[in-house]
């Protein structure tokens, strides 16, 4: 066992990771629930003492979200309408307590199939910035998440942030989350959308991803392509668009149900961009 370490700068954090593999701790909203009633013996690197990791910055290329960006930070940040889906997701995670503590990076590292940030970040074409003492690399989110509870992060790396390229100027975002209760809800199905429309409410560009219907949230690229040029409220969702989805039966709903409601939720998510 190695000591709990809470450095105040990134360099020390990277050096510590170089020394030994450690579990990263930020908001604790996944770490502690996984250890109820157990003595905690993990080698922990607590990132919360590094202030520069908690920042949202706009650059020439896009938006830089620090590794400690919380859900509440997202809700409160001034961001273009394309981020509205992400903001809605942030407001529906757990209770305000979780939103104040939990981080987007923690959410993508935990890689639950029902991770609320992921469909929106996929639709925003987010990139994950990984850093170790040896290298800095950037992976598209789709390449970062390898499966249920699996990521491309190496043991000596930490996520230093998420980069989101500037969405098209007129792009609008939306999020649909289906659950069984009003607060503290884990998704049965969720849909993240970023869409660009012309003045006739026709789709110029669509990015859409579905969560909780496969081990990893999926972009629906075929639908994205075929939607271009169609009216917002007359897009047909066909079985071929949903072939990547492989929902399962669980405590929250049956696989069959998930399959059957996905088209309706997609329709609502797409039409709903107008309210953003």
């Amino acid at each position, binding site marked *: 066992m190695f000591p709990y370490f809470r450095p105040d700068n990134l360099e020390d954090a990277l050096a510590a990771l170089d020394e030994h593999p450690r579990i990263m701790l930020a908001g604790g909203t996944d770490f502690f629930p996984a250890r109820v009633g157990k003595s905690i013996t993990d080698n922990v690197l607590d990132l919360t003492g590094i202030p520069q990791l908690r920042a949202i910055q706009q650059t020439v290329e896009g938006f830089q979200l620090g590794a400690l960006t919380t859900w509440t930070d997202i809700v409160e940040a001034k961001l273009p309408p394309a981020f509205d889906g992400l903001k809605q997701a942030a407001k529906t995670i757990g*209770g305000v307590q*979780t939103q104040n503590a939990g981080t987007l990076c923690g959410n993508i590292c935990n890689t639950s199939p029902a991770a609320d940030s992921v469909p929106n970040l996929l639709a925003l074409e987010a990139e994950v910035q990984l850093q170790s003492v040896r290298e800095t690399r950037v992976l598209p989110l789709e390449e970062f998440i390898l499966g249920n509870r699996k990521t491309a992060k190496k043991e000596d790396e930490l996520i230093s942030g998420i980069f989101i390229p500037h969405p098209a100027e007129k792009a609008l975002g939306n999020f649909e989350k289906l659950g*069984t209760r009003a607060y*503290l*809800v*884990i998704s049965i199905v969720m849909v993240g959308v970023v869409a660009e429309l012309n003045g006739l409410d026709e789709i110029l560009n669509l990015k859409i991803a579905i969560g909780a219907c496969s081990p990893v949230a999926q972009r629906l690229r075929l639908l994205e392509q075929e939607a271009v040029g169609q009216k917002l409220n007359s897009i047909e969702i066909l079985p071929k668009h949903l072939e990547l989805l492989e929902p399962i039966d669980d405590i929250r709903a049956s696989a069959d149900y998930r399959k059957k409601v996905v088209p309706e939720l997609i329709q609502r998510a797409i039409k709903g961009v107008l309210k953003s």
Partner: protein
Amino acid sequence: MSTSEKTIVSFILNDAPQTISVNPLRRFSDVLREDLGLTGTKVGCDAGDCGACTILIDGEQRYACLTAVGQLEGHNARTVEGLAESSNLTTLQQAFLDEGAAQCGICTPGMLMAAQSLLDQTANPTESQVLDAIGGVLCRCTGYTKIVQAVLKAGQTSSTEQTPPSGSAVGSRMVKVDGRKKLTGEEIFSADHAPEDSLWLRSIRSPHPRAKFTIAHPEKVLQKYPGMVKVLTADDVTGNNGFGIFPHIKDQPVLAKDHVRFRGEAVVALVGERESVESVSEEDLGLTWEPLEAIRGWDASLSGNLEPVQAEIPDNILAKGFLKKNDVEKGFSESFVVAEGSWTTSAVEHGYIEPEAGYARKVGQRLEIFVCTQAPYLDQTEVAQVLGLAAEQIRIIPSAVGGAFGGKLDISVQPLVALAAWILDRPVRCIYTRPESLASTTKRHPARMNAKAGCSRDGKLTAFEFHGDFNTGAYASWGPTVADRVPIHCTGPYFVPNVLSQTKALLTNETPSGAFRGFGTPQAAIACEALMDELAEKIGMDALDFRIKNALRKGDRTSTNQLLENSVGQVECLESLKSRWQKWRKEAAVFNQKATHIKRGVGCGSAWYGCGNTSLSNPSTIRVGINGKGKVTLYNGAMDIGQGSNTIMVQICADALGLPASQFEYVMGDTDLTADAGKTSASRQAFVSGKATQLSGEHLRAQIIHLAEATEPATLRIEQTEMSATEKLIVEDENGEHVIILADILPQPNGDVLTGEGTFDPPTTTLDENRQGSPYATYGFAAHLAEVEVDTLLGTTKVLRIAAAHDVGRTINPTQVEGQVHGGIAQGLGMALMEEYIQAVSENLHDYLMPTVGDMPEIEVILIEDPEPLGPYGAKGIGEHALIPTAPAILGAIKHATGVSIHHVPATPDRVFTALREAEK
């Protein structure tokens, strides 16, 4: 340095600097409670699912259980103890007190902190801002209604708190006598206190629903972990290694021997220093399992394909219930129409936010057990027989109870800590984790029901037949009670001339099912009320009119042929809802004309429920005393589990004695200090213990009148003086003042100079072989209307409004009765729409879903008072009646909205969706 080594952490806590040396990875909630003595912050799950531990960090609400104490470095934390300055409540706390927003009080600190974080930003928030702010805190008692009202009113109005003057406590909205400490964090719940030198106890529990096991080398852990003191197994039980509610069924082992019958059954109890008992693994003990095929569900229980759950019960039928009134066949043959169907329900968790906890310590040749319980005297005899001691050697000191709802009638930590403390002669404490509480304690019985009802052409019920299988899990618990109460109640509060009902309590390898608000009646009501809707529809009658036509009235005979002579307010309950029923149905029709996929509907459910035990003696004895200094103490053995019995008993006694309620102190439930007032169950405390309380007050008053040589009518007052020796009790009658100098009377050992005692045992009769007779002295009656909105494309249901009418005989405290109804509705809504306990799957509060504040409808409570002559000032029970009609009303509303009948609860989105699609075929 190991991870368990300490570092220095400096932060501000409630405005004062703190520097502590601590393992930085410990949960802040744990450090607050165990190291800093601030137990106002509660722990309900350790997983960010319940919100009881909500505190403020730098002004933002956070879960203390998800915060490593090391992360506090340089930050500013505030807990409930830091809200009020000295003894003054904040405006928010005062609003909670005035509105009755705290019932058991276990969620209250978290609620207050979540609400405070909003009020710090926004002095006058909107309702939706309030919902968002407290959406992360679960409450299981209040249905949230009064909490939301309190937050909205905080700071807007001055306090309405006043104590009722002498003679007018009953019927007043007196604030809870224990309300203040629930708002400041001073209330002591079961996990909030233990002697400093206590050892910790942790059970190792079966991960298998059925298995054989061996423990190869338990003693090795004593060498490996220096903090370990004792490993208890079945062989260490000094008395009978079996417990259970019934004197003749002690079938559940305290620690299993050789084999286990459900997942969550305890096999080993580890006792020692906390870190050590938390570190021991199954491997350390040499614990090996041989899993066996488990019996799950009603069919497997009845099939006989596997070895029976308990060898002594080869057919797995633990108990059968039966009721026969007249000739049901004849009744059906004479019916104009008949409706029938099958329904199933799921296991439901009580969901109290306080997990079971407590400690035991040896005092001489006696044991003191501090624990959360609904039944201190039952605990006393149970622990005594497990330890092989006399009941008098056991003292149960109840903690404040953080919700119970039937789940704390059975023992949990009691025999474990008692055994360890007795053997080791050291105090031993135990706190269940949430998964442990979920896995090992009782649930509502999953039911499989077939029911049939008939009526005449003009809508009079002719016959009712009911068959129900109740999955009682691996051990008896309250299975026989459920099998017994359901046949009596399954017809609902309707007059039916011919009735046949049969029930079985079936053993399976599932979590034991026990008592849960209604003892099987909420399940049966789902079947009954669906049949009422169907019959009404078949004969073209309005469903509410149909219910009114058939409702029990004074002079009717029940399904047990009991003549109802008094306090039968069912018709009044239904009539009081009629204008709303018509208006809501009309509004729904208008809405649905324009709606596309969202459909609204309105449904109705009725309930009746007998107050007290079924055909059994269940007396309560209550005492009240005045000491030489004029202090009045109510010795109240009735457990307040949040429902408010501490308060209403004071109200009742105050008026019976003729002194102001504000002069009362009380002792709750301590077996050394109070008489046996029975269990807090079966909606009996207000009625049975309430009557005993009234009698105790009257008894004391009679003595005082006699002693003062005064005559009624008279008024009493206690004159406090500076010099303690001359407290006067002054009795004023038509002849003037008569003075009793209290200090002149020889005190009893407890210091009281005058004592009153009252005992009440509700009159019932034994039932004959067809279960005919008078099983209960009185019944409560109720009806609910529910309006829902169903999204027919997704299958989601939102309850918009509920109107709840309850005949409570007499309202002792309107605020508390409303609170009971709100909370019952929340649990009924959960049962109808989302709650389903599945072993190994929903052993946490994010997979086991209970309603949040955002799931609650607008609720209107209508109180009907048809006085019960036997009850205190006419009062009877409300606890269970509040829940029973809700689910039937919601399901009826879904049917009205969509045309689809739901036959399995909970009606989750996928089930409603599937039912809708099947109906389209």
